């Protein structure tokens, strides 16, 4: 059995999500290769070569792949897919964008967001916002899979010395073009891999009040997240959103502040190890999943919390 993991990277470095996907690939067994498709992505390929247990890294370095346009990268992955039994990518915005296209090119179904590998063709995955866990079986000769990163512990980033093989195949579908990207720069850990996350909801009342979370986040080296309500209201940008259709997080500690706890938000954080909820409404559904609930006015509780930690 051979598995190809599609790396998540920014051309200069490898993202942790790749290491979660490699863990899922390892669970499938057999040989595991990593594809780094990008533009000037040599550094990312070298990082991938250090992941232990990898047979080889395929580096497709071409301007057509620089911004990971799905139309181009999917053609490359589908071509390389001829040599593999399984094609895996983390369930990131990028993985979700590319992999269904790959599956359709190969005329196979896709198994989205797997939580576990039960056997070579059987997987568990969440449906209905994670209120139900389905066991699904693929009848296809090749499996195209996206991996819920929080369900697989990342493999180590270093220790391996895999060979890097350059891939010269160029696929430019010619139907899409990158224009620009607005990416928030932050010194904080990434939301999806932080060990502590503190999130604000509608109860924060406005974007300025998110500064109340920042002091605590600084002390705990936490990432800052938000509920859909807070993002929709314009308090914070979309990349803060935790939930069914936003980011899925499972940190050691999740602190929900002024978040009522809609099903869709719970879907994105209820696998956190310890959940703290601070909300002035004692009937808020968030308390049903919280290990520690504090019924309090967040504008009083947050400064106290910052001082106490």
């Amino acid at each position, binding site marked *: 059995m051979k598995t190809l993991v599609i790396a998540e990277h920014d051309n200069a470095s490898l993202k942790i999500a790749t290491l979660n996907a490699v863990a899922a690939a390892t669970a499938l067994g057999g040989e595991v290769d990593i594809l780094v498709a990008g533009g000037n992505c040599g550094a990312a390929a070298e990082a991938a070569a250090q992941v232990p247990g990898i047979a080889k890294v395929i580096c497709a370095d071409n301007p057509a792949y620089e911004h990971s346009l799905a139309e181009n990268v999917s053609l490359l992955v589908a071509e390389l897919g001829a040599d593999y039994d399984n094609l895996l990518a983390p369930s990131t915005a990028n993985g979700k964008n590319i992999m269904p296209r790959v599956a359709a090119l190969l005329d*196979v179904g896709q198994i989205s967001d797997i939580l576990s590998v039960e056997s070579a063709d059987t997987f568990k995955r969440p449906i209905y916002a994670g209120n139900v866990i389905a066991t699904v079986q693929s009848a296809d000769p090749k499996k195209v899979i996206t991996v819920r990163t929080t369900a697989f512990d990342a493999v180590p980033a270093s220790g391996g010395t895999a060979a890097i093989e350059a891939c010269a195949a160029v696929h430019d579908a010619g139907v899409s073009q990158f224009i620009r*990207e607005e990416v928030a720069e932050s010194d904080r850990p990434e939301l999806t891999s932080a060990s502590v996350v503190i999130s604000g909801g509608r109860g924060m009342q406005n974007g300025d009040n998110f500064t109340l979370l920042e002091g605590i986040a600084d002390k705990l080296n936490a990432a800052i997240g938000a509920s859909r309500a807070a993002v929709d209201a314009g308090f914070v940008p979309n990349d803060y959103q935790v939930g069914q259709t936003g980011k899925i997080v499972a940190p050691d500690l999740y602190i929900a502040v002024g978040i009522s706890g809609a099903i869709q938000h719970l879907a994105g954080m209820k696998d956190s190890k310890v959940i703290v909820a601070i909300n002035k409404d004692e009937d808020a559904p968030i308390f049903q999943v919280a290990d520690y609930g504090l019924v309090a006015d967040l504008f009083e509780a947050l400064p106290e919390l910052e001082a106490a930690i």
Partner: protein
Amino acid sequence: MKALVAVKRVVDYNVKVRAKADGSDVDLNNVKMAINPFCEIAVEEAVRLKEAGTVTEVVAVSVGDSSCQEQIRTALALGADRGIHVEVDSKPEPLVIAKLLKGVIALESPDLIIMGKQSIDGDNNQTGQMLGALTGMGQGTFASELKIGDGSMEVVREVDGGLQTISLALPAIVTTDLRLNEPRYASLPNIMKAKKKPLETMTPDQLSVEVKCHVTQIGVAPPPERAAGIKVEDVTQLVDKLKNEAKVIG
């Protein structure tokens, strides 16, 4: 310019769905059904483009059993001009839906296809991208803004790090994210008018698509339950618990 919007009938987003006790499937008895929220955003966007004069006709298509005509009527009440129902008895998979939509596209030749990024039942997030591959069209997934130009369009996409803007040659496929727009409510007169709008039915045979099974659900179970938590009195007790009981902060 013609816009095609795909709509799916799903469990209403407020319903907390549960697995049946025997683990065979989810329990959907007497559960409220609705148009998938992301599909509703797709309809709204197409209707706004029509109101702005960019689009001249909005065609709403749904794949499913006869009950999904209800959701096509909802789309018509929101402002779509006519409906197409592709009748499939089983619960079709994303790849099959994409193939059926490709068949409809071959008949309708739309310039723009707008659909939801995922349906809130299967949470697959696949159909739009698959349709892109099958038709060779470009895709603007997880869209939060569209600007239609001459022969191309710009799509602002919600990605993990922030926002990405891409340009796509038309015809192209857009999948909607939450912040693309806020859908309107259908007015009673529009609901009445929608009943008279044309709704055509097609079969997979007519579209030369075989309804195949790629991924089978073999069982369902509830997610692991969290042990009941406690309420703490104040911040002092909270910090004490986090330090000494949960040991998650130093």
